[in-house]
């Protein structure tokens, strides 16, 4: 958001919705209701939601659910999706075995 956010701001009560059991993060099996509940627990950024619920922290690293989670959090906070900073992009871009990542071509690093 890059703006000053007072986390005591009133975002209203958590109101259950009929599709709260809809699975959003396919890898970590996190539902819409859990995400909405987390927002009311004070998790107002995508990064906090991830750390709190593991959305986007599974094998695919949020490639499928990132946009969906963003939409739910934005709606719950009453802001636009563009105002929510996406989670940090981190390597590896695809899952990679320890023995492969550890198997670097021998190089002169400062070449």
């Amino acid at each position, binding site marked *: 958001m890059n703006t000053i956010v007072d986390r005591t701001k009133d975002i209203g009560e958590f109101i259950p919705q009929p599709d709260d059991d809809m699975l959003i993060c396919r890898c970590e099996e996190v539902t819409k209701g859990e995400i909405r509940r987390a927002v009311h627990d004070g998790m107002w950024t995508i990064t*906090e939601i991830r750390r709190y619920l593991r959305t986007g922290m599974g094998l695919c690293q949020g490639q499928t659910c990132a946009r969906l989670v963003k939409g739910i959090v934005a709606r719950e906070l009453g802001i636009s999706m563009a105002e929510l900073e996406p989670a940090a992009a981190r390597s590896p871009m695809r899952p990679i075995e320890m023995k492969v990542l550890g198997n670097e071509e021998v190089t002169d690093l400062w070449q």
Partner: protein
Amino acid sequence: MAVVNKADVVIIGAGIIGCATAYYLTKRGKSVIVLEASDNIGNGGSSRNGGGVRQSGRDPRELPLAMYGIKELWPGLSEELGVDCEYHKEGNLRLGKTDKHLEILEGLTKRANACGLDVRMVNADEVKKINPHLSDEVIGASWCPTDGHANPMITTLAFYRKARMSGARFITGEPIKTLRRVKGRVKEVIAESKNVYEGEYVMVAAGYESRKILETVGVDVPMHQELMECLVTEAQQKMFPQMLGTAEADFYGHQSDHGSFVFGGSSGIEMNNKDIGPKNSPGNSAITAPCICRGIMKYFPELEDAKIVRTWAGYIDICQDGVPVLGFVDDVPGLVVACAFSGHGFGIAPAVGEQMARLITDGRTTVDISGLRYGRFKAKI
């Protein structure tokens, strides 16, 4: 607006130290404002560490805090905060592969024993009994059965959640520029936005950033920062519950409840790592993660097929003498310092928070933190 921005205590930094202190202060009936420079609660080391909740391997000056936390706070923490912090008290193995390693471990063990900690040296066979997945390269270890690990991201956010529920006011995206004394006492906190916050006490718990803030009232904590890295694997079948470290503290990690392994480690050049990451999200180096993988595989050959799904980096604020600076500053009333945790603040965070709350409300702590006081730094001769 001045009235709105006033509280008993203003805490700078919503890391786990700030969040925990805020929680324990609200529990003691104090009003609290927590100011966070970044957009996220727990954006620094609090969410980026390896999750160790250890006593073994610690400096005797901070050992009392570690022991107090593990005895009094960690066991009931999940229940108290209403969120599962994934705390496991199933021991810590500090591993050695060379005689020199064993020497280091023996030294640490002796010093810890002197402080009353149950930690002992175990030989290769005993190590294997505790953790059969370790490689034959391990020739011994120190073993502290009451150590363990927890989920740092969740624990930090759990403290935040509970503190917020108890009335603490958290403001993110509010970097602090200066502290201001009013009639001799540190009272005003002035943000870059020019917003002013006012507290009877001002606690600075902003990691390395604390240094700049403290400077504004003539307090300097001798510390530097290093960019460290961690990585996490895909979920694996349950393998072992212990926290692991090495004699040289170059690799560490554990298996989380989720099944993934979280490992941290160093490449040896982090002192000079470059950070090209976006604001508040430090970037990785190209060579550290491969190095961690090689390091870990030496200890756990069977993890070679485990896939790394993510790596990340985080700054640690390393104090000149390797332990934090905690408490009041004698000649600067109203100021509370809690920084320079030197890369091992997570495990003691609940204890630090609880003791800082006591210090602020009662004027004293129940755990001896005198070795961590601000005024301790002296020239070598």
